[in-house]
């Protein structure tokens, strides 16, 4: 069970991210995304914990000097895990622009034109 202020923060972040009004960036961890808000940085990460053999998700608040102000970490199966993983998924979708990518794929496929690109020297592949 997470604290009420964290629940509110997650809800607000989800709302903003779903509206594509939050610019999430990727960090040096493959599944971690960060959002810079004034003097703080919010980080959300999702990883497989090799100690507990369980999937985990977290949300961390860092101040401008990199000190951890507060954070929440939840394992799969715990209360509110789904709420936090939804935020992580939205951050990921926002970073990779997944909706926009699908939209452009569908537009291409729904059009009457031929899709794909023909190689200039197709003979090279046949040899």
């Amino acid at each position, binding site marked *: 069970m997470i604290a009420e202020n964290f629940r509110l923060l997650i809800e607000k972040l989800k709302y903003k991210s779903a509206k594509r009004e939050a610019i999430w960036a*990727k*960090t*040096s*961890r*493959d*599944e*971690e995304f*960060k959002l*810079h808000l004034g003097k703080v*940085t919010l*980080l959300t*990460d999702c*990883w*497989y914990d*090799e100690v507990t053999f369980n999937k985990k998700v977290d949300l*961390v608040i*860092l101040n401008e*000097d*990199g000190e*951890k102000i507060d954070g929440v970490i939840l394992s799969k199966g715990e209360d509110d895990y789904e709420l936090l993983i939804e935020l992580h998924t939205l951050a990921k979708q926002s970073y990779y622009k997944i909706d926009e990518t699908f939209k452009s794929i569908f537009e291409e496929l729904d059009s009457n034109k031929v899709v794909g690109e023909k190689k200039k020297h197709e003979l090279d592949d046949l040899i």
Partner: protein
Amino acid sequence: MLGLLLVGLLYFVFFDQKDQNMINGITVLGTYLSLLGIVISYFQIKSVKDINEKTKTAIEKSLQRLNQLVVVADLSKAIKVIEEIQQFIQQKNYAIVLIRMKDLKSILIQAKHNEEANKLIEYESFCINLNELIVDIKNMHEFTTGYKKTNLNFSKITNHLEDLSTTLTAFEHKLKNIKNDS
């Protein structure tokens, strides 16, 4: 001297013959000398004030230059530390990487709060680079302690350091040129 002649002339013009005695002469001369003293004092005070202001400006300029030199030295040190960190990453010596990254953060935070540096630095890109370093330190800490053992992209950390190095090198050249111009 001219004033003394003028006062003497006025004394003989405005004073009756019977009042032109030694006591009145001394009184007029004393008044004249007092006024002259006040005028001389005024100019002396003004001159001292000007000297003080010039000294103050010169001290401020020296401090500013000294501050710039300190920042240049810090930036050179930071660039060297970045090179070291990149080498330690290649050698997979991650405990040392973390220590040197923290040293680097300390240098950069000092530079960030330096007034002279603030005026000249590409502040936005510097803050972005610093923020990336801060997050990388957190991730490196979690990696070395075993809290999060997987998914750390070292090539991305190296890229972040390279971006930071570029920003700092540009800033260092800017500061050095200012030093040469002045």
